[in-house]
């Protein structure tokens, strides 16, 4: 019993479940407002009306975006790990996914700012 342990995958698994439960809440609110609540054609004014000056919606998306990106990219990581890539390939994919996640989070939050 001397194989390398990876408790990071333990936390990865646990956080994947927790973010999943959070996303169930976030997605139901997000989709309910955008696809079932409003008229079928969305434009700039409509989004601005909803988000402008709303502290609650800003907080909502600032939490939502990193959570959904983590859940998605961690899921992809699980899929990649199943194929047993070499150590080098694992490192490359891991770095790539972290960059995608961090850039995506900042860019995603930045994309909300014009409506606030």
């Amino acid at each position, binding site marked *: 019993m001397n194989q390398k342990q990876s408790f990071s995958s333990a936390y990865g698994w646990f956080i994947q479940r927790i973010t999943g439960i959070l996303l169930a809440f976030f997605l139901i609110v997000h989709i309910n407002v955008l696809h079932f609540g409003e008229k079928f054609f969305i434009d700039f004014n409509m989004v601005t009306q909803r988000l402008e000056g709303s502290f609650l919606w800003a907080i909502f998306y600032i939490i939502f975006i990193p959570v959904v990106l983590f859940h998605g990219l961690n899921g*992809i990581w699980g*899929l990649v790990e199943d194929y047993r890539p070499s150590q080098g390939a694992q490192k490359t994919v891991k770095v790539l996914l972290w960059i995608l996640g961090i850039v995506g989070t900042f860019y995603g939050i930045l994309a909300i700012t014009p*409506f606030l």
Partner: protein
Amino acid sequence: MYQKKLGIIQYYFDEWALNRNIGTFSWLLHRLTGVILTIYLFAHILVVSSGLWGPESFNSWLKVVQTPLTHFLEIFLMICIGFHLLNGLRITIADFFLATKEHKAIFWVAGAIFALFMIVTLSVFLPRVFSH
């Protein structure tokens, strides 16, 4: 000795051919919908970020993504989200509460919720497809 070669995609079809049960079905669809949703997520962020270049840019992009065809594809998006969400909760319940014995019952309960969700979705989305 003989061992079948493992194709990257073929592998999933092989497993489905040998294990036709609820667990394998959910696992395959969970993977597929997860990958689709992650790709959609990035496309979604990119489209919304067009607002950074002013309202006109945002509106013109939203015109591109709001056609009868994309409204039709949104129904598939809802199928993906509905399935992934409900099956994810099913797996989480099994993992957290050790409810492995009840996994089939939970699957059918989730299936009923999914059916209800799809009825609502179709009643909202189908008129949109034909209202352009």
